[in-house]
């Protein structure tokens, strides 16, 4: 029974966040458009050489996801703060990790939708050739997104409650995401290139390990973070 109650809480939080985000008209659409805009900017700044662009494609897609994703994470806690709704949230009885899990789930849904727009846009804009083994590419994408969401949600739970949320979140998050960025871009590049599956393999293992380590660590740490 207890786990059912907990699961109901997790679902309620995720549902509320997604609803709010979709309803705040500009919410999802504009984060996705922003992702595309950043892709264009990267293209222009790195441009005009087509070869150089193709090489930069993977990195650009990940950076665009990262930069626009940060905004989404911050918003998810900001909703709580705007009219002091975090206090009532903290005052519900029941375990606190459900709050983290709910936020995590909401952000995961949100970011998955976003990636579904940014990645095709990147493929088109940067002229990437889609290889036969695109399912593995999707796998890399998913692992990267999980890493991004786990740490993003965790740091947002603090940053968005401090006074400098917009600055603090990327400042904390970006250096921590260096392994994800490297692993995801290098693995994707390997999969896009000839093949070298064994090379991509090592990076994918790194991504899996990273996701597991930080999923565990943040779940443990969240209780300490949210209560203060």
């Amino acid at each position: 029974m207890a786990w059912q109650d907990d699961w109901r809480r997790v679902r309620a939080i995720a549902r509320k966040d997604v609803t709010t985000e979709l309803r705040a008209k500009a919410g999802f659409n504009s984060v996705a458009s922003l992702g595309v805009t950043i892709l264009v900017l990267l293209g222009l700044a790195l441009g005009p050489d087509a070869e150089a662009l193709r090489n930069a494609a993977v990195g650009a897609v990940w950076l665009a996801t990262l930069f626009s994703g940060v905004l989404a994470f911050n918003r998810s806690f900001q909703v709580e703060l705007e009219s002091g709704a975090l206090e009532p949230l903290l005052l519900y009885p029941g375990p606190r990790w459900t709050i983290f899990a709910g936020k995590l789930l909401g952000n995961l849904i949100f970011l998955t939708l976003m990636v579904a727009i940014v990645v095709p846009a990147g493929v088109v804009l940067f002229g990437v050739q889609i290889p036969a083994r695109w399912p593995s590419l999707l796998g890399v994408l998913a692992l990267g997104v999980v890493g991004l969401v786990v740490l993003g949600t965790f740091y947002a739970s603090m940053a968005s409650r401090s006074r400098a949320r917009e600055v603090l979140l990327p400042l904390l998050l970006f250096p921590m995401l260096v392994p994800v960025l490297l692993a995801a871009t290098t693995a994707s590049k390997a999969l896009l290139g000839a093949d070298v599956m064994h090379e991509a393999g090592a990076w994918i293992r790194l991504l899996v390990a990273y996701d597991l380590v930080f999923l565990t660590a943040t779940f443990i740490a969240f209780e300490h973070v949210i209560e203060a």
Partner: protein
Amino acid sequence: MLNGQPDRAIHLNGLGKRFGIRWVLRGVSLDVRPGEAVGLMGPNGSGKSTVLRVLGTLLNPNAGTGSINGLDIVRDASGVRGQVGYMAHTPGLYDDLTARENLRFAADMLGLQYTMVDSSLERVGLASVADARVRGFSAGMQRRLALARLILRSPRVLLLDEPYSNLDTEGVELMNSVIAGVVESGGAALVALHELAPAKAMLDRTLTLVEGRIAATHQERAGLEHTTPTETR
């Protein structure tokens, strides 16, 4: 009063709280018995909100101890949260959700049936705007909705921070009936306020906080209409 209930619903002993190096509460001791509603008065900045926030487990005390129905507010914070209904200065609602969605969310978090949502919207007189977004609500409507959320959890102890502000006459009566309901079933209430008038009929006594200390106790219901200075600790 119910059986097996501790004889102090709210208990504070020597509570101290500081922000930075400034002590805002300097040894506040108070007891509220089950079945009692107590007012907390005092000038601006005297620490009323801080007392309520500490009791509601939103702030940790820097000195002293406190308990709600025998549960320690620091060690057993989670238990305390199950008993307490706290209402802050601000309503704490999700602006982009409707009134009903806000309460359904609360019901989810509390593990309650959705049917209770409609009855509590009814009770606070917001049934007609149940599906309007909270963003467009006036100050008083928001406070009513916060009240609806409060009664959803059937609290045993109420901690109310200036609950009458923004409410019209009808809203004040509503608030009083909620307090009366809790108190009559053996619960307790601690209510911070500046203007005694709307709560006069409700309160058994009032405490006055001055510079972080209890300065006086005032009997309301018993008809002792004078101020009893108490020893400050």
